[in-house]
């Protein structure tokens, strides 16, 4: 027996395959392993959409508060200040203030200003709208990622998919309740606003319609706990974008509360407002619900505040996470969701393993039965092929899904194909009376073009599947592609090398054992 380069490569591939697939098979701590797909290990897969129009609406609102703040800062007098049809409208009362007003607007970016006498109409430019939409999506991706990272589950994935969708994958969820909590955490707008109560009209709030409130530039909000109605100025004093931190704490009666701190700009605005409005009430509003509305007793400097209002500890924890990781500029909604419980995943693994093992054993036995030692050689190649699939997947950290398992099972059936083709060719040549060496060499040469063409066409289908498939289907395309490529190495090169090592030992009288054919006509042919 002589070593040849084919056998050496094959042996190296076998060792590579076995060594690299061990961490995955034995669930070892070290080494790169195959990741199980969400359908096998259980978990939550979601495709989220982003309501970008809402981001534009809220941008206009904050534009309105910026204008109002600047106007008050410069002591300009305006009238009829309102947000209407996506525009900020107001009228300047003193003509001499116009240069000052224009200077204020000049400094703001991405706006278009229309003037009609002293009436101003400020809107966002189309380019600005586009960039707000884009930003809303990237911001949502970052925010959701932040929230999930802080929630403390292993390896969540958050990524932009396509132009305006967000893919969220969270493995390792144990119960539906936990899953719901995560979904709620993601969905939280976490939009914190500090708003002034309209003290002039607040007493009347119960008899007021939203339309009436809007006339005075007010909105009616509900209390989070008591469900009472509050009349607040529509344009907030400041919002969560100026927040730097939010932590869960406990108040005197041991109820969970959330302490937040503002950045210097926020602290300034907050200080100014509280200084000017002593004796009036300030509403702490989270996601359009009033959590508390304490009376301002004195100017509050330092820029910190508290949200209290009957949270459970869990809720307070999640709200603090959401506040820290920032508000969602635009609400997200669900386009697609797939959630698999851990027990179903385990069942799927079990079922497909049984199918894989049974199918594998059936093929192995059939090959030996039909081809004799040639069948054993093909089986060795098949086993190495399986290890190689696992090893390559582990090396690239690929994900194994349920259709991926099916892909491996299918590969078992198809990988021996190359050896069936080759063995049939060798038999044919032996029947024609060729010598063992010649039959083997020519058999491989003749079979090669067919195997290559057949594999490439299957690969074409697999690549298309990969490009157009989603999650689990991609997994099928991956295992099938790797299986096909690995079979070229094991079933063609590997078995060829083994035959080259063995061919000197084969006598024509014993082709029955070696190739599973009767020796008559083989030995004595010309």
């Amino acid at each position, binding site marked *: 027996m002589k070593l040849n380069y084919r056998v050496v490569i094959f042996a190296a591939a076998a060792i590579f395959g076995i060594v690299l697939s061990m961490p995955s098979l034995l669930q070892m701590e070290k080494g790169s392993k195959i990741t199980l797909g969400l359908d096998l290990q259980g978990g939550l897969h979601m495709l989220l959409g982003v309501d970008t129009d809402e981001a534009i609406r809220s941008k206009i609102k904050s534009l309105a508060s910026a204008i109002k703040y600047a106007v008050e800062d410069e002591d300009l007098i305006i009238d009829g200040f309102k947000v209407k049809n996506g525009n900020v409208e107001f009228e300047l009362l003193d003509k001499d203030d116009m240069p000052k007003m224009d200077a204020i607007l000049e400094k703001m970016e991405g706006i278009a200003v229309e003037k009609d006498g002293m009436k101003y109409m400020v809107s966002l430019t189309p380019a600005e709208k586009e960039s707000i939409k884009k930003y809303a999506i990237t911001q949502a991706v970052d925010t959701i990622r932040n929230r999930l990272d802080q929630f403390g589950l292993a390896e969540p994935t958050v990524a932009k998919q396509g132009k305006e969708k967000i893919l969220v994958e969270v493995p390792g969820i144990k119960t539906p309740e936990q899953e719901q909590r995560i979904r709620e955490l*993601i*969905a939280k707008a976490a939009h914190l606003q500090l708003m002034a109560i309209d003290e002039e009209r607040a007493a009347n709030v119960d008899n007021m319609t939203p339309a009436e409130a809007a006339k005075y530039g007010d909105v009616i909000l509900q209390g989070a706990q008591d469900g009472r109605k509050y009349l607040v100025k529509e344009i907030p004093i400041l919002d969560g974008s100026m927040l730097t931190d939010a932590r869960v704490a406990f108040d005197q009666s041991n109820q969970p509360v959330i302490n937040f701190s503002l950045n210097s700009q926020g602290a300034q605005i907050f200080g100014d407002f509280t200084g000017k409005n002593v004796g009036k009430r300030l509403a702490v509003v989270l996601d359009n619900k009033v959590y508390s509305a304490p009376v301002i007793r004195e100017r509050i400097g330092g820029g910190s505040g508290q949200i209290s209002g009957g949270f459970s500890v869990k809720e307070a924890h999640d709200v603090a996470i959401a506040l820290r990781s920032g508000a969602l500029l635009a609400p997200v909604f*669900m386009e697609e969701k*797939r959630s698999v419980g851990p027990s179903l995943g385990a069942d799927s693994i079990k079922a497909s393993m049984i199918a894989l093992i049974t199918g594998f054993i059936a093929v192995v036995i059939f090959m030996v039965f039909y081809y004799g030692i040639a069948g054993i050689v093909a089986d060795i190649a098949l086993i190495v092929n399986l290890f190689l699939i696992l090893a390559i997947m582990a090396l690239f950290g690929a994900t194994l899904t*349920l259709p991926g398992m099916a892909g491996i099972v299918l590969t078992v059936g*198809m990988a021996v194909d190359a050896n069936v083709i080759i063995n049939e060719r060798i038999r044919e040549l032996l029947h024609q009376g060729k010598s063992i060496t010649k039959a083997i060499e020519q058999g491989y040469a003749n079979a090669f073009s067919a195997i290559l063409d057949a594999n490439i066409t299957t690969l074409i*289908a697999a690549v298309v599947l990969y490009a157009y*498939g989603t999650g689990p289907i991609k997994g099928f395309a991956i295992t099938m592609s790797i299986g096909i490529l690995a079979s070229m190495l094991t079933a063609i090169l590997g078995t060829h090398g083994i035959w080259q090592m063995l061919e000197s030992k084969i006598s024509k009288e014993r082709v029955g054992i070696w190739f599973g054919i009767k020796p008559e006509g083989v030995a004595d042919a010309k």
Partner: protein
Amino acid sequence: MELFKYKKPIPLMAKSKLFFTISVVAVLASYILIFTKGFNLGIDFAGGTVVQVKYEGKAPIEKVREAIRSSKIFEGASVNFFGSDDEIVIKVRSSSKKLGTDIGDEARELLKSTGKFEVRRVDMVGPKVGSELREKGLTALLLAIAGILIYVSFRFEWRFAIASVIALVHDISIAMGAIVLFNIEVNLDILAALLTILGYSLNDTIIVFDRIREGLVSVKSSKLADVIDESVTRTLARTTLTSLTTFFVVLTLFLMGGEIIHGFSFTLLVGIIVGTYSSIFIASPLLMAMKFNVEGYRKKLAEKKRKEEEKARLRAMYEQGTV
């Protein structure tokens, strides 16, 4: 062991009309089924929600139906056993955009009184995603066929490419007919199965064509029918054996792989049978029908060879410095 010992070519081409008739009938029947009964589109393509619930012990299916009857979200929902009698699936065409409390949570709440259970799977596909997936799926199928057409034309000859693609369309059509006939729910996995059939059945056809390509040079007769008969007969063992091994493996997947890949493995089973049949009995006769010319092909080959030899001769002369 040898099941298919080659003695002499089986005269298959003489019977090609019979096979064509069988296939035309089968394909027509498939399309009639597809257009009258129609596909049972699953949520991946039609949108909707599936909730899979496993009970401790036998699932109280009537109680479940009763429990969700009053709910608006579950209007028109179907409740069926899934694989075993302790497991059920609730399917409904609606989907919810809300992240906070979704249809799965709703189901959990409604079923509270029906016994001890575990919600094992909630799949929800919104209408927009559904139509996107449908579009993508169709594109994938067409692209794969186009890719294969190009490759086969490049490696063989255009008539081979057309014949193999017709055989493919034949296989896919009949597989789809079977899907409709057995009311298999069409989801993404079925699409994957159809694409696999595409690759697999082509695989078979290519092996036969490869032999014909070889036979065009080596078989003595210049009648196409003889070349095809000999080539098909010589590859019969391989075609049948590989199909058998793959068939057994997929059969184990079908029988033991669990309910969730039932549709997938069923589609593959049909595909393997039809694919094997078509590569033996349909693809090659199509070459005949398209009047593939053996003499012409041989002449072209000879011409090509002559040109190459001429080139080699010139090069040799050039290298020797005689030109």
